[in-house]
């Protein structure tokens, strides 16, 4: 509604210009000369244009300030990671510096345009250079830039340094058009190898069963669970085209590149539950999005992220069945010497139905257990 009013007022402004300028062209028509620099400068329209710059600046400043305040409730959604809060602070610091520069320079530009508009029998000041002035305004931006770069660089260095030892490594794999996650499992803390050539309908991540670390690996899609206050290392890869993991609330973004695993580590320090209380929105969910165009479903590669306390997380993890247990027919792929170790992961009901080969990986393995959080 407000916007409609804004637009209407704009239309009226435009109409006003139209009428004024029409008038001047009529007046000019009376003279009937070819327009020259002087006649244009001395015309009414020159004064109108000069005045409009002033009006534009004042109206623009008010509109910008008002709309900024109005829109700011949606800016930078509440950060839930320490590094995110740090970069948010840097963002607003930089933003205030550039806002000052923005207002001052635009003000001068429009004010000078208004103030020094053409006057008859007046000469502009011949003022081709002033080295001192130029030096000043070269040095000031350089110093400000240096400070901003330095603070930014320190933040960047901290964010991109190696993940801490105790970080929970989770693999997140992008494909057209959803994300799949793999957890290292409860028995060993290691993600098993993978090979894209092993990918098939059931083994959608190409898990390599010649590596014993992969026996207890757990795969899920649709939602990612992570414990609060524990560093999480995302091991990111893509199966088909480029994707990009974007977790807006965590200030996390990293491309998923086929053939080149990437990584990003962060600490989530607010559980989903805490955010629900903080935002007052009982349906709040952390979300994972894709920010690298990847095809027609690019806009809907949504996965939810559930941040929970360590106990809930461990409980959830314990309820997950390893991928191998869910796909027992793949036991045949385990090399002879590791068969004994793998036997542990055979489903209790050893006579698994043979036709389960055809069934794709169950989507959303944790769906029922975490219903309260969804």
């Amino acid at each position, binding site marked *: 509604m407000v916007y409609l009013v804004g637009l209407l007022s704009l239309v009226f402004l435009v109409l006003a210009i139209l009428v004024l300028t029409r008038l001047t062209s009529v007046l000019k028509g009376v003279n009937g000369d070819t327009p020259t620099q002087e006649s244009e400068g001395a015309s009414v329209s020159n004064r109108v244009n000069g005045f409009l710059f002033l009006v534009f600046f004042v109206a623009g400043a008010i509109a910008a300030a008002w709309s900024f305040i109005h829109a700011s409730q949606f800016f930078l959604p509440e950060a839930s990671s320490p590094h995110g809060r740090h970069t948010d602070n840097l963002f607003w610091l930089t933003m205030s510096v550039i806002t000052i520069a923005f207002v001052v320079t635009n003000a001068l*530009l429009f004010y000078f345009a208004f103030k020094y508009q053409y006057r008859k029998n007046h000469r502009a000041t011949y003022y081709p250079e002033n080295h001192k002035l130029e030096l000043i305004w070269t040095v000031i931006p350089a110093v400000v830039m240096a400070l901003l770069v330095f603070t930014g660089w320190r933040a960047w260095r901290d964010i991109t340094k190696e993940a801490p030892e105790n970080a929970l490594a989770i693999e997140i794999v992008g494909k057209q058009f959803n994300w799949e996650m793999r957890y290292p499992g409860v028995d060993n803390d290691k993600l098993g190898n993978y090979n894209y050539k092993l990918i098939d309908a059931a083994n959608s991540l190409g898990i390599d069963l010649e590596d014993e670390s992969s026996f207890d690996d757990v795969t899920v899609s649709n939602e990612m669970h992570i414990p609060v206050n524990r560093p999480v290392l995302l091991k990111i890869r893509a199966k088909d085209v480029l994707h990009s993991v974007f977790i807006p609330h965590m200030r996390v*973004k990293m491309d998923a590149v086929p053939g080149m695993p990437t990584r990003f580590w962060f600490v989530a320090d607010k559980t989903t539950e805490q955010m629900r209380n903080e935002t007052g929105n009982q349906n709040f969910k952390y979300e994972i999005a894709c920010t690298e165009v990847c095809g027609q479903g690019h806009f809907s590669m949504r996965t939810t992220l559930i941040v929970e306390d360590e106990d809930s997380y461990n409980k959830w993890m314990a309820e997950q069945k390893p991928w191998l247990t869910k796909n027992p027919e793949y036991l045949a792929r385990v090399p002879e010497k590791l068969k004994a170790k793998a036997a542990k992961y055979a489903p209790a009901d050893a006579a698994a139905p043979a036709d389960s080969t055809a069934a794709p990986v169950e989507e959303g393995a944790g769906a029922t257990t975490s219903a309260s959080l969804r």
Partner: protein
Amino acid sequence: MATVETNAASSAVHVEEHDHHEELSFLRKYVFSEDHKTIAKQYMFSGIFWAIIGASLSVLFRLQLGFPNMTLEWLRPILGGWIDESGKLDKEFYLAMVTMHGTIMVFFVLTAGLSGTFSNFLIPLQVGARDMASGFLNMLSYWFFFLSSVLMFSSLFIETGPASGGWVIYPPLSALPQAMSGSGLGMTLWLMSMAIFIVSQLLGGINYITTVINLRTRGMSFSKMPLTIWAFLLTAILGLISFPVLLSAALLLIFDRSMGTSFYLSEIYIGGEALPNIGGSPILFQHLFWFLGHPEVYIVLLPALGITSEIIATNSRKPIFGYRAMIASMIGIAFLAFIVWAHHMFVTGMNPFLGSIFMFLTLIIAVPSAVKAFNYITTLWRGNIVFTPAMLFSIGLVSFFISGGLTGIILGNSALDIQLHDTYFVVAHFHLVMGAASAFGFLAGVYHWFPKFFGRMMNPTLGHIHFWLTFIGIYLVFFPLHYIGIAGFPRRYYSFTTYEAFRTFGDLNMFVSIAAIFTFTAQFIFLWNFFYSIFKGRKAAQNPWNSNTLEWTTPLHPGHGNWPGEIPPVYRWPYDYSKPGATSDFIPQNVPYSQTPESNLPHENALIALEKEIEAQNYNDQFKQPH
């Protein structure tokens, strides 16, 4: 003033002499012309044609973004199958439109349209040359561009649709037809078109550089060249160095697509099968692409800044402030443009250490840019400003340049870029600083040099209205996009309904779309004014803006060879406006100091002795008449 008149008078005499010059056939004169002025017009009309297509595409996808529930059944006569059964825009076609909008605007409008028009038109006229160094190569350059345009245009009509992977065409998406239908024939046409486009750019660029270096008239030293020419020269150098890299990037992609190589492809499982490609790197493509892609930003922007420098000085009736600083900052920008490309790739998985380096280099570029902005503002200070439409657009350009440039300080900071990368903040940033600013450069140039192009004036009142509607409209479109970006909305999303985090701002998106349609509509004022004035505009004076540069010493309709008699020599810099003591408030470049003793500065009196020497030179105009 006196000299200008004498010049005009002598021109009239010479015109008679050369009227019997052999008449060229229609085809040689207007189609396969080697005359830089005709080629410039060809580029201008092509650029305007492409701008209409590119802008229409943006209106179409703004409809989808602003009114996600609208049925677009009424567009079925134009778009056919691209409207799906439910009357909505097809999701892949949405991406195709975004891609084609970017490609068309960046390459076909703001590179070919802007540089092609004004470098071609102004370089010979402002440096004082009969034509380009090679008229033939110049003609080839346009016709290669035309061929590339035909290919790109035809890709809009094929069944599988044009290229759809974003204007940056990152592989593997662009390499694999099974990934999206636009990566089939559409992508093949895109790559062929761009390869030919690059050939055209290189032919043009070589010509611009050669002409500026070799064909300047007597006395036109580099320190007396108008800033427009400096800008065009640096633009051409940027293009000459960076476009070949895009060509190799495109060629390797063609190999990957058609010959089974693996430059960019590795470990891909798509469409139910694992591809055999191993060892390629999609990041390699991004490096190669942005090695052009970033200089490209300046290829687009520098000519606009050059045009603005000239127009602001002329219409402020003041010398441009800090002429040497302006040149130095353009050289600085041009140099830095080559070593900042990876700031587009902070979160692509590139080594974070490289990210640090590129952040430092990127933020250095803010310094020369700031100097340019300050110099423009100071040029207005204590001027005597005439608001011609060209002047209005130039002031608008400076405002966009500042507003859009400042947010670059945020995006160039790798730590802040994590959140904002590939969001609408980026869209807002580059549309202001390179899109709108360069488009304003183009419009300012058209308004300013229209009398030289066509010998007639455009209607200034319509120009004023066009400016205000466009200026307000563009701010209404792109200012709110910053808000949407700060809220984290990703680019190239067909709809924002899937995510809770992006479900806000529906009304703002609608507002932006309305503003975009409003701005688009306002351009028809320009189109009408432009085409009407070509035929019916008021007859222009020889030097309607009382400008100093050489192009205004040519006859109203310069013939082949530009000057009927000898090319005038140049004695002074192009910015002697409102010189203290001078009788007129401008002294053209071809007026010797010996004729203006009343206004000469002390060191300029010393230059009078050199005038004979300048006049005696004759490197480039042996026949002293067009031939």
